[in-house]
């Protein structure tokens, strides 16, 4: 008798672009048990089906879109995961919200694995069980909004969901994400770039089914509980949550500046003047530009995203949706404090399919080099590339996307650009494993520094968020014991104390891997609901899937995923020496906020503790055979032996 699936649909869709073949594969039940879905199964497929040192732009690379058992239910909040081998040779994985994930489930699929490379520009149309690989020659070169419009017109349905790339990814610009629903960007580690290399412009999907749940009454009760937890201030477990509901991620724009965590002027400073910070604040944003809220599928957080319009001034006519805390980064990094300029930069990045962080850090690095006399107008196509030059900033975004002039150099990412320019410019690059960092205050919150240094993808805060704990007063000893938490929450709450951060990060990363595989929104679950207790999420998973799993088993799944992802990088040659943070954070103090650098000794201490807590070799950062076997990853240990990985 065929066993029914609840939560999962039980089908992986494999699309082979080289010969236009489509294969439907049953989802192995042991994968669902050991990796759950979404990020977990994506990583499993990627590890098993790619070879070490494979060229990321070769047809052998896989591009995987993954949902999880909670997708299509209100608990999943539209989250899903996109994975591939990054053009930087690390694992590339990133979550994305919106509506594509649920629609894919409604069409009947858990994962899409894109294989091979199309001979000409192509898009995929999934209409429940019917799958077509269509010509996209006429869309190649179009912006994301144009692509959205054309495909909807061709399909004759305005309600389909899509993933697409912009012109930047077509030109293999570094770190391009995949864009969905015009304003959601996923996987800034280059999934869009790899999609461009496969000549795949878009995937469109329409589903008419639903998601079966195992225990409908329990699901209803859990949803009522979830709703109450997220909307009743007294039940919230995080001091940021009420503000998050009110302003969404834009809340951080002003607060981060004031507390000294705004990455100003290429991280030379950690704050702007108060007036400048007020000008780009979430409060001003809400007052002047927001026209209506925007959230992901079934999400109860109304303020998380917002549609905006700029009606006056040089940026008049800019319209879009804001779904991340980017204003707190995109402006201060390059010294721009005009909110309309920041919003225009964001819209341009989404339209052209660029990673906004890559763009902002590239421009900030170039501006610092310009001000220090390392580069001149001769290098920058005649642009006066000083901090605060909004016009040059916006102009350079288009140049990067189309690889025009100096933009062609920046299109390679800061790491490569600094190698091309040389002349000491390498000193000012802010990258880890070749990827531009985000807005995390490494010198202020040490656990954030450790997360940035060690993550398999590179800098991606969503893979270990949040870098602080809920108030230790609400942490029960029982919940700590259940989840195997062996660090002191009070000590872990102290930002600039290296001790305990390794064990704290292990917990955060394992838990994030679980949340992103089930999936749920890392912000909503960690901030709004869970505190330090993943038990509520476990109860939801059981109600939806009917699979009985303990909290301990769930955390083991998280550890297995993180270790497998580490193994992917180990296979590519990444070791302890690559687990670091930019020189600036290790050597320079923050003069305007009175704290010193995070020293190499402190980072070493945290790395030692992190590897020890994970059962990874301290000298190399390679997962040991003992740990791999404990996590049922013996095949990985055997492969390490075969290819000569040394501990």
């Amino acid at each position, binding site marked *: 008798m065929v066993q029914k699936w609840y939560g999962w649909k039980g089908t992986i869709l494999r699309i082979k672009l080289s010969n236009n073949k489509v294969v439907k594969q049953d989802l192995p039940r042991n994968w669902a048990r050991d990796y759950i879905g979404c990020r977990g199964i994506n990583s499993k497929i990627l590890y098993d089906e790619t070879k070490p040192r494979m060229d990321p732009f070769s047809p052998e690379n896989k591009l995987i879109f993954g949902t999880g058992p909670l997708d299509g239910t209100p608990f999943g909040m539209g989250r899903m995961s996109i994975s591939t081998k990054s053009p930087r040779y690390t694992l590339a994985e990133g979550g994305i919200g919106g509506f594509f994930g649920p629609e894919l489930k409604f069409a009947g699929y858990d994962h899409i694995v894109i294989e091979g490379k199309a001979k000409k520009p192509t898009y995929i149309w999934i209409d429940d069980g019917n799958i077509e690989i269509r010509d996209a020659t006429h869309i190649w070169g179009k912006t994301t909004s144009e692509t959205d419009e054309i495909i909807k017109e061709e399909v004759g349905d305005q309600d389909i969901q899509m993933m697409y790339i912009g012109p930047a990814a077509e030109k293999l610009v570094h770190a391009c994400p995949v864009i969905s629903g015009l304003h959601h960007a996923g996987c800034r580690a280059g999934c869009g770039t790899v999609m461009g290399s496969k000549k795949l412009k878009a995937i469109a999907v329409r589903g008419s089914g639903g998601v079966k749940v195992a225990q409908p009454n329990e699901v209803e009760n859990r949803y009522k509980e979830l709703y109450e937890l997220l909307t009743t201030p007294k039940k919230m477990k995080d001091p940021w949550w009420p503000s998050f509901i009110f302003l969404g991620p834009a809340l951080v724009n002003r*607060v981060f500046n004031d507390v000294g965590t705004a990455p100003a002027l290429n991280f030379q400073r950690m704050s702007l003047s108060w007036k400048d910070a007020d000008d780009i604040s979430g409060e001003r944003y809400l007052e002047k530009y927001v026209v209506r809220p925007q959230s992901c599928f079934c999400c109860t957080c109304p303020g998380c995203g917002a549609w905006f319009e700029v009606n006056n001034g040089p940026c008049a006519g800019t319209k879009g949706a804001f779904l991340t805390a980017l204003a707190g980064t995109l402006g201060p990094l390059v010294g721009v404090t005009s909110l309309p300029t920041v919003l225009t930069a964001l819209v341009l990045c989404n339209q052209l399919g660029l990673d906004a962080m890559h763009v902002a850090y590239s421009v900030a690095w170039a501006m610092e080099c310009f001000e220090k006399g390392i580069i001149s107008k001769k290098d920058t196509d005649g642009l006066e590339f000083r901090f605060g030059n909004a016009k040059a900033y916006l102009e350079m975004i288009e140049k990067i996307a189309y690889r025009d002039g100096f933009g062609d150099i920046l299109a390679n990412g800061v790491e490569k650009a600094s190698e091309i320019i040389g002349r000491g410019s390498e000193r000012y690059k802010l990258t880890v494993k070749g990827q531009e960092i985000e807005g995390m205050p490494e010198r202020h919150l040490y656990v954030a520094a450790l997360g940035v240094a060690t993550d398999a993808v590179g800098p991606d805060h969503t893979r270990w968020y949040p870098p602080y704990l809920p108030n230790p007063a609400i942490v029960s000893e029982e919940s700590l014991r259940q989840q195997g938490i062996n660090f002191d929450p009070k000590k872990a709450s102290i930002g600039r104390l290296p001790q305990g951060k390794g064990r704290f990060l292990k917990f955060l990363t394992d838990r994030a891997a679980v949340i992103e595989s089930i999936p749920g929104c890392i912000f909503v679950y960690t901030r709004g609901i869970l505190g330090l207790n993943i038990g509520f999420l476990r109860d939801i998973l059981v109600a939806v899937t009917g699979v009985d799993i303990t909290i301990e088993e769930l955390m083991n799944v998280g550890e297995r995923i993180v270790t497998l992802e580490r193994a992917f990088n180990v296979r590519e040659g990444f070791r302890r020496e690559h687990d670091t943070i930019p020189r600036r954070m290790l050597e320079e103090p923050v003069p305007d906020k009175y704290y010193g650098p995070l020293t190499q000794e402190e980072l070493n201490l945290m790395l030692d503790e992190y590897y020890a807590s994970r059962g990874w070799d301290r000298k190399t950062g390679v997962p040991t055979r003992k740990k791999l076997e404990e996590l049922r990853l013996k095949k990985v240990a055997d492969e390490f032996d075969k290819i000569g990985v040394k501990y």
Partner: protein
Amino acid sequence: MPILHLKYCSHITVITGKLEETIKTKDATANGVILKLDEKYPGLKKLFISNGILNLNTMIFLMRTGEPTVAVPDLNTKFKDGDVLILI
């Protein structure tokens, strides 16, 4: 009497109607400041204090010249002249 610079964020601005202000207070503790503000902005105390401790859903950051910014841990925390507080 110490002079404190207060900055209000997100939903707190709905109660205060402003983004920042300067106050003088005799009782320069976290508790004293909240009580003083509650006189001007009724309801603010309820937002920040429950069962005699700082509410878990709120945060007060203390910025003092020459020192890194910290979150105020409890209601007895004393402030000095020139301190800047962020209420969120």
